[in-house]
């Protein structure tokens, strides 16, 4: 049997056993539901699109109040008025929520904590302008002259006529970074736990009687990695279908290029961290120690994520350096590529370093794994595990 068929067998077992597990099915189902929920719920809330505002009125307020407020609110709301005999009754209605705001002809606008700021501003402005119009009429100024008087002489002109497309590309790349981050956290810990399980079950000695440690490691990373990608693709497809049913799908201009790069870096980044997590898992014998063993990796991962998230607005020197280093590159380089900031040589150097270091890590982790797997009891040091094995 060739090395590759051993790897395939190991990968298939890890894939099948996990996909058959109730926990996996539940968590996948739940995630899909959550994603659909996040997309759909805001639309359910906004189905009417417009709100209903009711203005409580005490005494004789200027005519056309409701109509003018509604015109000012645009699509936001429809407006009605409700007449009250006394201010006390109107205030009680405000407290009950029957009206949203009260206008007393004596000259007050009464609000409470529930009142919308927009409504308050709008009502105050409308009352003021109706007041001005009324007084102007009394002074003999006609409506047309009044409009002239108030029409502004300044127009707003934006310099960024077209929205910058690299912004949406960057956002897309950052979204890919988030997915990579979550994948590594989730599936990395599956790998970590899976390795420790095999160690605590002692099954690993039986398996290693036939399969080389680096084959077991590669198979495990592949099996869980493919399962992870399948889960993400499922969630992604559901999200895209739901979004496109709503016509809410907004594809960035350069999505194709950004997507390809995001995918390449996803695969490299996942491979790098997954292998490192497997090696870390081989060093401990109990699940309680899992997080300790993985702590340096988790720290590195968090650092990469933070560098990326602080740099979403644009290129900076820290991001530039990070994008060249293998442990940070998968989360930072896609951002720079999407933003058009990465020079060709930087991408090339970063890619070559990444591939070389990942290959080295597979070899190194294979040895650590081989050395660590058969040592039980106390936590094994990286160096001891490496020395203990030559496979």
């Amino acid at each position: 049997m060739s090395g590759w068929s051993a790897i395939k067998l190991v990968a298939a077992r890890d894939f099948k056993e996990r996909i058959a597990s109730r926990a996996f099915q539940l968590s996948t189902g739940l995630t899909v539901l959550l994603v659909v929920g996040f997309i759909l719920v805001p639309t359910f809330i906004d189905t009417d699109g417009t709100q209903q505002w009711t203005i409580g009125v005490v005494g004789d307020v200027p005519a056309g109040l409701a109509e003018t407020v509604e015109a000012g609110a645009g699509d936001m709301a429809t407006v009605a008025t409700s007449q009250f005999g006394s201010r006390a009754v109107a205030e009680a209605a405000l407290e009950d929520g029957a009206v949203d705001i009260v206008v007393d002809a004596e000259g007050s606008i009464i609000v409470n904590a529930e009142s919308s700021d927009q409504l308050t501003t709008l009502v105050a402005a409308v009352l003021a302008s109706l007041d001005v119009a009324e007084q102007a009429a009394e002074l003999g100024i006609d409506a047309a002259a009044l409009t002239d008087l108030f029409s502004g002489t300044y127009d707003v002109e934006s310099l960024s006529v077209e929205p910058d497309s690299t912004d949406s590309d960057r956002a897309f790349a950052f979204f890919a970074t988030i997915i990579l981050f979550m994948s590594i956290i989730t599936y990395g810990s599956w790998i970590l736990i899976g390795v420790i399980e095999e160690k605590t079950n002692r099954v690993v000695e039986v398996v290693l009687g036939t399969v080389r440690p680096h084959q077991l490691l590669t198979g495990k990373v592949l099996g869980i990695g493919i399962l992870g990608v399948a889960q993400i693709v499922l969630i992604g497809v559901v999200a895209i279908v739901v979004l496109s049913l709503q016509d809410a799908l907004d594809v960035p201009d350069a999505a194709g290029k950004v997507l390809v790069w995001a995918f390449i870096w996803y695969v490299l980044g996942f491979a790098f961290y997954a292998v490192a997590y497997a090696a870390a898992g081989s060093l401990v014998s109990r699940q309680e120690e899992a997080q300790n063993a993985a702590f340096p990796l988790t720290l590195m991962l968090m650092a990469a994520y933070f560098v990326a998230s602080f740099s979403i607005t644009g290129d900076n020197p820290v991001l530039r350096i990070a994008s060249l280093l293998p442990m940070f590159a998968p989360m930072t380089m896609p951002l720079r590529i999407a933003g058009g900031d990465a020079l060709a040589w930087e991408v090339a150097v970063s890619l070559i370093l990444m591939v070389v270091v990942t290959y080295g890590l597979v070899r190194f982790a294979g040895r650590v794994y081989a050395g660590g797997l058969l040592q039980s009891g106390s936590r094994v040091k990286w160096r001891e595990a490496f020395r203990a094995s030559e496979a």
Partner: protein
Amino acid sequence: MLQIDSLRKTYGDVIALDGCSFTVGRGQLVGFLGPNGSGKTTTMRSVFSLVQPDSGEVRWDGMPISPAARLGFGYMPEQRGLYPRMKVAAQLVYFGRLHGLGKSEATRATLSWLERLGLGDRADSRLEELSHGNQQRIQLAAALIHEPELLILDEPFSGLDPIGVEAMIEILLERAAGGAAVVFSSHQLDLVEDLCEDVVIIAAGKVVLAGPVRELRSRSHHRYLDIEIAQPSTDLRRAFVDRDIVTVDNGRIRLRLDDGTPLEPLVRTAAGLGRVQQFSFTPPNLSEVFREVVEP
């Protein structure tokens, strides 16, 4: 034929193997004996490259062991372990395939093993749902699923009830009769003496004795004399005070003598004590041979 040739392995200051050498032929069932920490597990692991010896070599049919050759071996480690949540049949098929069987072959072998172990109806149970004894049976099946030509078992009898021991003996004899080379370690020396024609005894990482049990016993420099006397006139311990007494119990005494010790004086002493019911002169049994070589 399995050849363990001059294996040396140190862990820091600890010498685990110190030039360990022995051979196991096809069709041979060899008991691999030694006190705790003498290097049995390290030797067995080095056959599967789970341990890399510092020097020396393990060969199969005269060749260093290749990964392909290793697929034809079966291994049951001392620390038993399978996947607890995996279904029994799926698990055996998996191990069969890891050993190079095709899918249908592995499935066929799995079904026949489950049938043989009386677990045909548990194919779809998770391993952890089985009793401890049945889990042990599955463990053995996992090592045998591909009909290995070399079978290495580390303490296969530990933790088995008498019925389990019987079943294990039957299977080991059957594998050896079928032409496989079989090596197993054990501390149950009486059982090994009954079961194996050949043993290898290791102490402090070195083979101290190897060969057919009968030969090893007779090659010993000691003989054992069992005397039984009905109502002895004096205390037996006092009567044989100048001899090497192994055990004494009422009218029975077991003495250890150097090979070639004249028996006549002993016969006379015994006859003087009362009516002699037993007077037997035998080579040491396997446990005595074992003790002689590991604690000189």
